[in-house]
């Protein structure tokens, strides 16, 4: 029997930017409608009200806005750390561990030397220790990859658990009061090793540091010789070898950088926000950052948008859960739907569907 398939898929030409962003916007609108309908059917709540609560939860008050910006800055910082590695097609899934390793080194100095050094020197030492800690955690899998071609995804992933368990051990060991299982706020009285507030805003310094970092990473990747080498190695190792790039050196150097920025994020978290260390200091951002990176197609500037989107959604969705007395999973459902649509829209930017029957029209 002769039957044309219902539809077939055809690759598109590159769309102009306004059309591709139109498709993405449309995807968000569709996502909101679908998520709204699901909300209505599952909970009977008015979707408009739910969305209003969501916005309120994210930016409803000044405090919430600052919290959102801090959260975004941290997520962005980790995503920026992943970018050089990802551009090199080195799938660093160990950001969580690298952040924790950096944060841990920094907390140790804060805890042990807090009252022995002047504050400026202490903070500097914490910064160096944090960056170094992250870099070491990042470079170990890179060395193994370069020397013995181990699988970096698994290796970096496993390194996460080592970092988490080390912290778990010392948090118990150093817990205040003893046996409480928590270190508590470090140097609460002296505030030694705390990053200063600017204009009364505790998080502003973190946000400024990450903003500068965004520009630096962008410049490094786009205009520097190192950035060029990273792109060549990522695209084709054979080409890199052919033109005489030392691939092993580039892998190790880049992962050193990636880990170092993760370590910086750890420092900012410990010194500039939490003033303590727990197993949850990175809070899963090491994994969320992977999504931020991919959604922005490894472009540091776009990452500002994608990390803001994701933090906005999670803050807002969290508010829905508490306001309407819903299970936290419900906010995950809404976040999931929205991200699904955004990721899915990329398909329609690259391909189009031709439906049955439309062929004849095209003929005439």
């Amino acid at each position, binding site marked *: 029997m*002769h*039957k*044309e*398939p219902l539809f*077939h898929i*055809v*690759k*598109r*030409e590159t769309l102009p930017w306004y059309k591709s962003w139109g498709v993405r916007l449309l995807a968000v609108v569709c996502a909101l409608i679908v998520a709204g309908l699901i909300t209505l059917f599952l909970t009977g709540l008015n979707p408009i009200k739910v969305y209003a609560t969501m916005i309120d939860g994210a930016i409803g008050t000044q405090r919430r806005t600052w919290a959102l910006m801090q959260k975004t800055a941290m997520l962005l910082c980790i995503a920026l750390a992943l970018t050089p590695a990802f551009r090199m097609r080195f799938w660093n899934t160990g950001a969580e561990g690298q952040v924790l390793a950096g944060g841990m080194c920094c907390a140790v100095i804060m805890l042990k030397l807090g009252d022995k050094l002047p504050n400026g020197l202490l903070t500097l030492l914490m910064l160096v220790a944090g960056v170094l800690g992250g870099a070491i955690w990042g470079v170990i899998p890179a060395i193994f990859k370069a020397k013995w071609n181990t699988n970096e995804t698994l290796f970096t992933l496993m390194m996460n658990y080592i970092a988490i368990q080390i912290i778990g051990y010392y948090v118990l060991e150093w817990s205040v009061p003893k046996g409480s299982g928590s270190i508590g706020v470090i140097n609460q009285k002296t505030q030694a090793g705390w990053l200063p507030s600017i204009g009364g805003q505790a998080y502003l310094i973190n946000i400024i540091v990450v903003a500068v970092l965004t520009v630096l990473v962008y410049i490094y990747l786009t*205009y*520097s*010789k*190192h*950035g*060029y080498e990273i*792109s*060549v190695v990522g*695209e*084709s190792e*054979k*080409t890199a*070898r*052919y*033109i*005489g790039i*030392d691939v092993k050196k580039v892998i190790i150097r880049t992962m050193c950088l990636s880990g170092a920025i993760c370590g910086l994020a750890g420092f900012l978290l410990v010194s500039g926000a939490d003033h303590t260390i727990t197993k949850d200091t990175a809070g899963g951002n090491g994994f969320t950052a992977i999504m931020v990176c991919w959604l922005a197609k490894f472009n540091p500037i776009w990452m500002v948008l994608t990390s803001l989107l994701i933090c906005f959604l999670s803050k807002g969705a969290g508010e829905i859960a508490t306001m309407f007395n819903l299970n936290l999973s419900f906010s995950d459902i809404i976040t999931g739907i929205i991200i699904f649509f955004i990721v899915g829209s990329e398909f329609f930017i690259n391909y189009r569907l*031709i439906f049955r029957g439309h*062929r004849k029209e*095209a*003929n005439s």
Partner: protein
Amino acid sequence: MSVPAIELKNITKTFGKSVVANKNVCLTVNYGEILAILGENGSGKTTLLNMISGIYYPDEGQIFVNGEEVSITSPKDAFKYKIGMIHQHFKLVDVFSATENIILGLEDDGKYDIKKASLKVREIAAQYGFEIDPDKKIYEMSVSEKQTVEIIKVLYRGADILMLDEPTAVLTPQETRKLFAVLRKMKESGKAIVIITHKLHEVLDISDKVAVLRKGEYIGTVNTSETNEGQLTEMMVGKKVTLNIDRSDPVDPTDRLIVAHLNCMNRDGFKVLSNVTFTAKSGEILGIAGIAGSGQRELLETIAGLQPMVTGGVQYIVPETGKIEFLRDKTPLQIREMGIRLSFVPEDRLGMGLVGSMGTVDNMMLRSYRKGKGIFLRKQEPKALADKIIEELEVVTPSASTPVRRLSGGNVQKVLVGREIAAAPTVLMAAYPVRGLDINSSYLIYNLLNEQKKNGVAVIFVGEDLDVLLGLCDRIMVIGSGTVTGIVDARTTTKEEIGLLMTKEVRKDA
């Protein structure tokens, strides 16, 4: 008249808006007939066959099999209509035997019966004159044996319509003759055969009818007995072309690169080059002939410093001073830092020579980005070079920053060869530089190589088309399974002699 095996009516297939792979193609293939589809690379030959074999689906038009309109949406559908395709790139499992590969994926009721199957394989082989050992593992087979397995695979499934995509590209002249003998037998037994090729003399040799495509458009079908090379070329290219390579005598050739007793292993520890010794001279083109995969790639990569050698040495004689430099165990970067201008056009253009996702400018920078102090890239020079190459070699590209992956094969090669020549080399190595290129681009590349030769460059040219090797080179070195089987004078040798050398076994102890 009998019903045609396949009839295509106004088949159109586009990729995106601007790429028209096939436009209003009409074809007829009868049983007991060999149809050759002729066209340059990128003219849509493979796309067309892929639509008949269910890999693509046409945007417009109709396909008739045995006079009935059909819709082929998967390779399984194609088999239902007794259509079998032999792809250019084999799809075989290396660790399985011939028989195992042949019955793999076959939906027979009951159990796999290897014995029965290999008996049937032998029957098919005997019927058409194949030479095959059903129990031999694929990884032990030569390219031509693998191809035999692919052909038997579709015959085993009962195909009456066979389509072969460039089957002769990987074969020696002798193997090609054998294949053609088999195809003729199949034709006599009433099968319909479609064969893709861009070698004219093969078309004239084997086919009954020739259909010509040009840039996706169907130009026409002619009877082979009523046409000639000139007419076919004109149909293919759209205008009259003169195909002459102007070969000058080498001027003052002196030794430039001496390769001595080179031995080389691949990653798995198999010996890929053994005891290779030759000299490349300035001002001449040294051709390297051999069956694909005989060690040509490894040889060039070893000289370029990309592969370690086990034993042996490479000496470079500096043209100005006559000083000898040893290239053994040097990395490509070290070789360049020694001031040796060794250019290399690798076989794998987008995978090794260029970065596909980068534009022409950034690809120019591959060779020069280290220049200058500071940590930042300087783009003016590569930009100027890119513009110069685009203009002088007539590279068709929307802009100098368009990813080279999106350019056609010929233009990609112009970018690569242009960059390598711009480095003012003293040794230029090119592996299959015209593979996949249309006739005009191919001749442009030949001329560029000739120009380099006249400038006193030692050119090493790895080629597959023996006619070209004979017409372009001064000397031809033949490689068979990693050993040099002979070095002959290109002006006096014959295709047959080279063909014999290609398959000659050199005893290991010799």
